[in-house]
C-alpha cells in the first residue's frame, strides 16, 4: 500500500464511484425502467420455497430484459416476509409506497398473503399471489388488485379425497396436520371431501409447525389401524412424519398435500419416500410445452437453489404481470384491471383464467407418486401400470 500515493487512491475511488453510479444508466438509457416486487419467505423454515420462487421470478425478468422486443426495462425489488404477517405487512407497505413499483408477485405463506390483502388494495397495487393456497385470500373479497395463479386447496382436496377412496379403495384414514392455517384448512377440506366420498376418519391430530418428533401422534394413530396416514403440512414436517412412520412400523399408505411436493422431500426422506402420494394444483412442469424450457432455462440461470414446487407459479405470475404492463403501460390501476380480465392465457402451468375474485379457475390438479426418488405423475408411474404396488395397498391385502 505504501507506494500508492494518496492522490492515486483518491482518483481510483472516484472512478469506481462514478462507474457504479453511471453503469446502469448508461447501458439501458433508451428504455423506460419499470420496477416489480417479489415478496416471499427468504429466511426461516420455509426459505427453500421462497428462494425457489424468487429465482423463478428473477428468471422471468431476466428473460424479458434480454428480449429486444420488450418495451420496458424491468428492475426488481426482492423482499423477505419471513413467513410472518407483521413482516409481510411491512414488506408490502415498502413495495406499495415505492411509486416505481407497478406490481408485485407476492407471498408463499397463507398467513402473510391474507394479512396483506388490504395493504395492496388500499395502495391500489396489483399483487399476484404465487404460492399461498388458503381459499380466503381471493374468496373473502372482490378487490381488483388481488389475483392468484395457483389453485386453492379446495380443488386439490376434492381430487385427493376422491382418488384415495374411489380409485385406490382406501377406507380408513388417520389425519395429521400442522396447526398453521395451511395445515388446518387442508385438514378441514380434505376431511369434508373424504366423508362425501365415503372414507372414514379415525382421528385428526394437529401438530406444531417445525415439530421434530411425531412418534407420539403416530403411535396414537397406529392404535386405530388406519389404511392411510394423511399429512397436511409442508416438506420438513412431512419428511419427519413419513420417516418416523416407518420406524414405528406403521405400514399404512402415506398421503400428503401440495406442501410436500418438493425435491427436498424425496432427497431427505430417501428410501422412505417411495410410494408416497401427493396432489398439486396445475400440471407438472415437465409435461407442459413451456415446462421443459423453464427447467432448462432455470438450470442455465445458475441459481443456487432448486425452483421447488411453486417456482413455476412465480415464473408465470411474473410473466402475466409483465405481459399486462407491456399491453397497457406501467400504470397500477390499468395493470390491475387488465390482469383481472386475464382469459385463457397460455402459460407453462397451462391456461390461466381469473374469476370475479381473481382466482385462477383452471382447476387442474395433478396426482403424484414418489418413485425411485422422484415425483412421478401418477398416470406415468409404475404404480398405475401395475408394475409396483402402493405400500398401503400391500398392507391392506395382508
Amino acid at each position, binding site marked *: 500500500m505504501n507506494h500508492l500515493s494518496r492522490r492515486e487512491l483518491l482518483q481510483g475511488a472516484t472512478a469506481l464511484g462514478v462507474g457504479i*453510479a453511471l453503469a446502469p444508466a448508461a447501458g439501458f438509457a433508451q428504455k423506460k425502467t419499470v420496477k416489480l416486487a417479489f415478496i416471499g419467505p427468504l*429466511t426461516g423454515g420455509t426459505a427453500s420455497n421462497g428462494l425457489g420462487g424468487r429465482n423463478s421470478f428473477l428468471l422471468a425478468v431476466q428473460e424479458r430484459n434480454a428480449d429486444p422486443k420488450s418495451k420496458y426495462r424491468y428492475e426488481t425489488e426482492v423482499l423477505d416476509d419471513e413467513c*410472518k*404477517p407483521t413482516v409481510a405487512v411491512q414488506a408490502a407497505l*415498502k413495495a*406499495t*409506497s*415505492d411509486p416505481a413499483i407497478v406490481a408485485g408477485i407476492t407471498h408463499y405463506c397463507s*398467513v402473510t398473503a391474507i394479512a396483506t390483502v388490504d395493504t395492496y388494495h388500499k395502495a391500489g397495487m396489483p399483487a399476484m399471489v404465487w404460492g399461498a393456497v*388458503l381459499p380466503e385470500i381471493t374468496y373473502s373479497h372482490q378487490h381488483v388488485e388481488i389475483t392468484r395463479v395457483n389453485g386453492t386447496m379446495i380443488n386439490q382436496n376434492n381430487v385427493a379425497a376422491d382418488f384415495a377412496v374411489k380409485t385406490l379403495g382406501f377406507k380408513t384414514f388417520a389425519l395429521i396436520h400442522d396447526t398453521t392455517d395451511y395445515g388446518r384448512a387442508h385438514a378441514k377440506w380434505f376431511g369434508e371431501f373424504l366423508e362425501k366420498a365415503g372414507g372414514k376418519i379415525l382421528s385428526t391430530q394437529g401438530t406444531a409447525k417445525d415439530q421434530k418428533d411425531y412418534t407420539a401422534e403416530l403411535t396414537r394413530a397406529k392404535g386405530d389401524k388406519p389404511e392411510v396416514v394423511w399429512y397436511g403440512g409442508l416438506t420438513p414436517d412431512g419428511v419427519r412424519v413419513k420417516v418416523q412412520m416407518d420406524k414405528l412400523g406403521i405400514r399404512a399408505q402415506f398421503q400428503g398435500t401440495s406442501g410436500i411436493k418438493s425435491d427436498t422431500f424425496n432427497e431427505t426422506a430417501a428410501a422412505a419416500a417411495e410410494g408416497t402420494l401427493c396432489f398439486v394444483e396445475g400440471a407438472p412442469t415437465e409435461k407442459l410445452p413451456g415446462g421443459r424450457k423453464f427447467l432448462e432455462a432455470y438450470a442455465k440461470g445458475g441459481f443456487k437453489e432448486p425452483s421447488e414446487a411453486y417456482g413455476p407459479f412465480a415464473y408465470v405470475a411474473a410473466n402475466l404481470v409483465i405481459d399486462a404492463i407491456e399491453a397497457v403501460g406501467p400504470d397500477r390501476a390499468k395493470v390491475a384491471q387488465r390482469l383481472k380480465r386475464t382469459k385463457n392465457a397460455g402459460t407453462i402451468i397451462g391456461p390461466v383464467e381469473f374469476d370475479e375474485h381473481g382466482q385462477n379457475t383452471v382447476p387442474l390438479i395433478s396426482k403424484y407418486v414418489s418413485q425411485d426418488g422422484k415425483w412421478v405423475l401418477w398416470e406415468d408411474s409404475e404404480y398405475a401400470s401395475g408394475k409396483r404396488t402402493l405400500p398401503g395397498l400391500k398392507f391392506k391385502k395382508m
Partner: protein
Amino acid sequence: MALVLVWAAELAVFALVVAGILAERPLPLAATGLAIVAAAVGLRLRPGLRRALVAAFVAHRRAALAGGALLALALPLALRASPYWTFVAALALLYVTIGQGLNLQIGTAGVLNLAGAAFAGLGGYSVGLLTVTAGWPAWLAVLAAPWVAVIVGTLLFVPILKTRGHYLALVTIAFVFIFNILMNNFEFTGGPQGIKNIPTLRLFGWPFTAKPSLLGVELPAHANFYYAALVMASLTTLVLRRLHDSWLGLTLNTLRDDEIAARCCGVSITRGKLLAFCIGNFFIGLGGALYAVMVGFVSPPDFDFGYSLVMLSVIIIGGVDSIPGVVLGACLLLPLPERFRFLHEYRLLLYGLVIVVMLLYRPQGLWPAAIRRYR
C-alpha cells in the same frame, strides 16, 4: 449561542435520519453513511465539542425538548412520499411505549420478564376480540385492552414472585410459548389466521384510514397512527420518567440490587414487584392494543418469542433502566433492520452480530441510566 448549538445539532440529526431513510440510490446512501460516520468520529476526536454539546443540552433542556418535539411532529412531512417509512416510524414509537413498560419491570425492578410479546399479544388480541367479536368501538377497546394484560399478568404473578433470576426467565419464556400455542389452537381467537378486519380508530369522526394533511401537505394514512403513537409514547415516557424519579423508582432499584437489604429497610418485595409488573404490563398491553388497530389484524406469529427478544434488545442496547435509553433503543433497533432489507437473507445474521458486538463493547448501553436527582 448555546441555544443555536442545540437546535443546530437537533436539525443535523434530523437531516441525517431523514436522508438515511430516504436515500435509495447507492451514491446518496453512501454519502449519508459517510456523514453519519464522520459526525461520530468528529465527536470522538473532539472532546471539547462533545462537552460543549452536552453542556448546551443540559443548560437548555426545555428548548431542546421543544425542538425535538417539533421535529418529531415534522417527521411525517419529510417522509410523506413513503407510507412504508411512516409505518415503520409509528412502529418504533409503539416500541417506545412497550419498551418503557418492560424497562420498569426488567431494568428498574429486575423482574426478568421475557414474556413481553405475550403481554403485547394480550393487548392486541383483546382489541381484536372486543371490536370484532363483541362489537365495541375501537377507542374503547384500546382503552380496555391493557387491563386484560394487567389482569392476566397478575395471575402469572405467583410464579413470578416465587422464582428469580434464570428460573424466572424460564417461567416467562414458557408463558410466551403457552400463549402462542393457545392463540394458535383456540377457535375463538381465529386460530392461526388470527383476527382480521379490526376496525380502525376514529377521533371525533375522523377515521384513521383517511389521509390527513398538515400545513396543506397531504400525508399518508399511517401518519394518523404515527401521531397517535407519538402522543402515546410521549405520555408513557413522561409517566415512567416521573415514576422512575420518585419513591417507586428508588424502591424498585433497591429491591432489584439487594432484596434482603430492601426488606430490612421496610420494602415489601411482593408489593414492589407486583406494582412494577402491573404498571409495566399495562404499557406493554397498550402498545399491543394500538398495534392491533394500526395493522388491522392480529395473529399468533405477531407475538412470538422473537418479539420478546426485540423488546429486550431495545432496552439493553438503549441502556438498562434508562428512560431516554429506551427511546433511543426503539428508534434505532426498529428502523435499522428495515433499512437493511436489501441484504435479504443476510439481515438476521447481521442483526445478531451487531447485538453481540454492542453488548461486548458498550454493555452499559447507548444512553446509560443517570443518577436520580429528583428534579
